[in-house]
Structures are given as structure tokens and as C-alpha cells.
């Protein structure tokens, strides 16, 4: 639906260097990268707020690289909301519809609908400076949704919120996406990307270096940059079972013990490769997760060796060169892998 090819834009501090990616209808596309790699500028280029130096942007097959801002059907919500301070919540929501010349009747019914969707029905008469961060973010989201953009761009919409508003906002974003809204979501927060993305793109130094579904990107980072940004190599999609204290997370044929107070349900579990301990015999320690497996890959990485085991699913461990030499590991070896229940992180989504 949205196709970006070789987008270049140089700025005083940094630049976009031939950024290319494609977003399909209905996707929740998360652009992940550290602060200052040009994510906001990329969004502003898509929205038409910044003129690009070269490259092209097509939306539904139409080239919009140089189209005027108001004719693009792209909505952008800024991190700090940018609500109109002299207008009430209702007037903020209605702004886009008013400038598009809709009738008062249409505006009223549309705003009722939107206000309910984003959960600001009780705030309509309020001044914007009386809103909490989470409320303001909902209003900003509703204001943009009111004009029904083909593609919704979110610039770190969650980073500035407190923990409770965060999970509410994530839920809201997922709901909007499920209702069919195509979303490009920019963040530097790895957890946020995991819990939202249907596809992830990594940005490094003004370029999009890797795109793919979260599991694929996390299992097979294609560059040192992505690997170090992710920082862990094990990624499992599955279901968290109900329970107290140590609970089970079922992913395919394996069952992981996790410690979490999250709601049971679908999600992903991640595990840092450094947390996985390898041994030749079944370990006798306190680790709750113990799996036998066969080595299917051995690779040298910066600061050690990565061993990929088949334990019913792929499990990556990182060990030092010394351990490697002592244990004499090679492909086909049978080993035991173990890690603590507390080392597994569960992300609902």
C-alpha cells in the first residue's frame, strides 16, 4: 500500500540515506532504532512536512513524493501530542472535519463515534491543559483518526506516558489496527515493538537495514547492529497459562517456566542468549527450565561463541571461547541447556 524507495534527506545533524521499505494494507509496521537515527524526519517526509532530497513515496500506487501535505491522506501523531491549546477537546477532535467542510451534523456524529473509540467521551468539554499525558495522547490519536487517514504515523506515542497509560495506549493502538487501520509506529523501545508489531523494520544511520516479522528479525538479525540492539537471541511465540508465581508458557512442543504477573493469553517470550547455561550432563542446579538438545550450529561472534541447539525449537546460547574449548562442542553434539524461570521475559501481544 505504502512504498518508500531510496528516500534521501540530509539535515544538519544526520541524514536519511536511501531508506526503502514497504507497508501492506492493515499492517502494524514498527520502525525500531535508537534515538537520533532519523525516525521522526522519516515520518515528516512521509507526511509531506519535509521536502525529500531524492527518492519516491507511493501510496496506493499514486506517487505522493511532492504532493501537498493536506492531500496525502497520511495522519501523524507526535510524541508530545501537539494539541491545539486554545481549543477544547471536542474542538480539537473536530478540527480536521471542520476544515474539510463537513456539515455540523456529520461532525457531531463522527466525533461521538471517535470519542468512544479512543475513550475520551467524558473529556469532550475539557481544556487541553487539564488533561493527563495518557488522555492527551488519546485526544491526539482521535483527532487524527477523525479524518480517516489511509495510513497513520505514530511518533513514539507511548514513550512519554506512565506505565499504566502505556499499556492502555498499546491496547488502543492494537484495537485500531485490528479494525483495519494501517499504522507505522516509530519507537526506540524494544518491548513496545515486540508487543505491537506485525512487522518490524530496523533503522541504522539513516537506512532501513532489516525488515521482517518480529520472530524472524529477532532470530536472524542480519547485522551486528541489529543483534546488539536486540541484545538477546531467543524469541518464542505462544500462550501464557494462568497461575500464580512460576507459570508455564507453551510455545509449540516446549514448555517454559516463567515468572510474571501478566494476564494469561497470547504473547511472546524472550530470553537472552547469555542466560542459557550448557552442560554435558543433566544439571542439578535450581534452574526451572532444563532441555536436552542437539547442536545444529556454532558461530563465532564478538566476545564469544553462539551455539544453536535444537530442543524442539531453536535455542541460542552464548558462551565464552574458554568454555567452548573445554567442552569441545561441535555440530551434532548432544547437550543440556538450562536457564532460570526469571530469565524469561514475557510480553503480552
Amino acid at each position: 500500500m505504502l512504498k518508500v524507495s531510496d528516500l534521501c534527506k540530509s539535515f544538519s545533524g544526520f541524514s536519511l540515506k536511501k531508506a526503502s521499505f514497504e507497508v501492506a494494507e492493515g499492517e502494524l509496521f514498527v520502525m525500531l532504532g535508537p534515538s537520533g537515527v532519523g525516525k521522526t524526519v522519516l515520518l515528516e517526509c512521509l507526511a509531506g512536512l519535509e521536502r525529500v532530497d531524492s527518492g519516491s513515496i507511493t501510496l496506493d500506487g499514486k506517487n505522493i513524493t511532492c504532493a501537498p501535505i493536506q492531500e496525502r491522506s497520511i495522519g501523524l501523531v507526535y510524541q508530545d501530542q501537539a494539541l491545539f491549546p486554545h481549543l477544547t477537546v471536542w474542538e480539537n477532535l473536530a478540527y480536521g472535519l471542520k476544515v474539510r467542510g463537513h456539515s455540523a451534523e456529520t461532525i457531531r456524529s463522527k466525533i461521538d463515534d471517535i470519542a468512544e473509540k479512543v475513550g475520551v467521551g467524558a473529556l469532550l468539554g475539557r481544556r487541553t491543559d487539564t488533561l493527563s499525558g495518557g488522555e492527551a495522547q488519546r485526544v491526539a490519536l482521535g483527532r487524527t483518526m477523525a479524518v480517516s487517514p489511509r495510513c497513520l504515523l505514530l511518533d513514539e506515542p507511548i514513550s512519554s506516558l506512565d506505565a499504566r497509560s502505556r499499556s492502555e495506549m498499546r491496547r488502543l493502538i492494537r484495537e485500531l489496527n485490528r479494525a483495519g487501520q494501517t499504522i507505522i509506529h516509530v519507537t526506540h523501545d524494544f518491548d513496545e515493538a515486540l508487543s505491537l508489531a506485525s512487522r518490524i523494520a530496523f533503522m541504522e544511520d539513516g537506512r532501513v537495514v532489516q525488515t521482517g516479522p518480529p520472530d524472524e528479525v529477532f532470530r536472524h538479525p542480519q547485522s551486528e547492529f541489529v543483534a546488539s540492539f536486540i541484545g538477546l537471541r531467543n524469541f518464542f511465540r505462544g500462550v501464557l497459562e494462568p497461575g500464580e508465581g512460576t507459570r508455564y508458557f507453551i510455545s509449540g512442543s516446549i514448555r517454559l517456566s516463567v515468572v510474571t504477573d501478566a494476564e494469561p493469553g497470547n504473547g511472546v517470550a524472550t530470553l537472552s542468549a547469555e542466560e542459557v547455561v550448557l552442560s554435558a550432563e543433566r544439571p542439578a542446579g535450581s534452574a526451572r527450565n532444563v532441555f536436552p538438545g542437539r547442536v545444529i550450529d556454532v558461530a563465532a561472534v564478538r566476545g564469544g561463541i553462539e551455539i544453536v541447539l535444537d530442543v524442539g525449537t531453536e535455542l541460542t546460547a552464548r558462551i565464552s571461547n574458554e568454555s567452548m574449548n573445554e567442552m569441545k562442542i561441535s555440530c551434532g553434539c548432544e547437550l543440556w541447556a538450562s536457564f532460570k524461570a526469571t530469565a524469561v521475559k514475557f510480553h503480552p501481544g
Partner: protein
Amino acid sequence: MRRFKDLDRFEVLCWVFTLAAILFLAGPVAGLLLSVDPDFFAHDARDPEIWRSLKITVFSGFASSMLGLVTGLPLAWVLSTSSVRVRNTIEPLIEIPILLPPVIAGICLVSFLSEKSIVGGIFSRLGIEFISSVWGIVAGMYFVGVPFIVKTSLSAFQEIDHRIIRTARLLGAGSARAFFTIVLPHSSRAILTGFILMLGRSIGIFGTVVMIAYEPKTVPVLVYHRFVSMGIEAAKTPAVLLIGLSLLFFAMRRLTVRGS
């Protein structure tokens, strides 16, 4: 509330200077108002010439200030959205009328607007004469007053988070629509302050206006005329009326400031 005996020597000294300054600022105005003979004032204030000049002054003041809004706001908007280099080049020019002595500004305008000059010639062909006319008064007032509108609105425009303007554009507003629905309401208080400051400056300006138009007389010119031809008592009547007018604007300005 601290008592007087709690103040140290430095603070006492500061208070002495403060009171002296206030006395010097308020004293002459109060003195003039107190020295007016009410009977003479009531009689003299019926002079039609005074009312004619009051009307001309208020009309020209409003006309020049409206012109100041129409031209000053776009100028301030251009400055606030242009690059630092352009802004640094143009902004000092705005201050010329503030720093230039009013009489010198008057001389500049007379030679610029007289029918023998290019600009004055063009207007003259259109039937607009500046010398000794209300047009000239408006032009003089505009010249010395417009910087107030540009300066106050420029600083307000610069304070606006550019992202709210961008958001308005994203929601479908053209640049004009965004200016009128977001930028202007957001800066309305500053713009009103600039307007009142310009109005006050326009109504009070003597040096510039007198060079362009001794006739028809604005109130400051009338005060001067009466002072040199009829003496100080005769000058007091229009002076008191002008003080009243200035106080009115002063009160309006305080009200707009209080609101924030």
C-alpha cells in the same frame, strides 16, 4: 508583609529611589491635572477646534493601527518562519522607526511622500496628497507605530510550537487556514497588546506628524500650537483630554495583560 524596621540600609536606599522615581513620573501629570481651572476648562473644551483635532487624532490613530495589523502581521509571520539569516537581516530594519528621532522620521517621510518624489508622485496622480492632509498624518503614525505590532506579534509567533501548525496542516488545513485558526487565536493577546501600543504611540506622536501636517492639527500639534501662540493655560485643555485618552489605552493594555 515586612515592617519598615526589618529593612536593611540597602533596601531602604532602594525604596528611597523607588519613591523618588514614582514621584517624578506621576508628579507632573498629577500636577497638570490639579492646576487646571475647572471653569476655564469647561468653557474652553467647547472650542470646536479641539474636538475637530481630537476626531482627526483618534481616526488617524485607528486607521494607522489597522494598517499596522494588516501589514505588520504578515511581516511578523514571514520573519518567524524564515531562516535565521533572513530574520537577522530584516529584524533590525523594524527597529529603525523606534530609534530614529521622530522629527528626523518626519523629514524622511516629507521627502519620501511629497509630490515631487517618485512615490509621492504616484499617489498624487491617484488623488492622494500626503503633505498637510489626514493621509500624511496616517502615514507618519504608521511609520513610528508599526514596529510595536511587528515586535509583539513576532515574539508570540516564535513561541508557537511549530508542530501544532504542522498538525493543523496534516488535518487538512491549507496554510492560510492554519494561520487564521491556529496561529492568530494563539497569539491574540500579544497582537492586541501590540495594537494598543501602536495606537498609543500614534495618538501621542508629535515630531513626525508635525513635519508632514501642521494642518489639520492632531491633538499634540494643537497643544504645541496653543502653547506657543496662546500660552500654557490654553495648551492645558487639549493636553488634559489627551491624557484622558492615553489613560484609557493604558487601562485597556493592563486589562489584556491581567488576563494572562
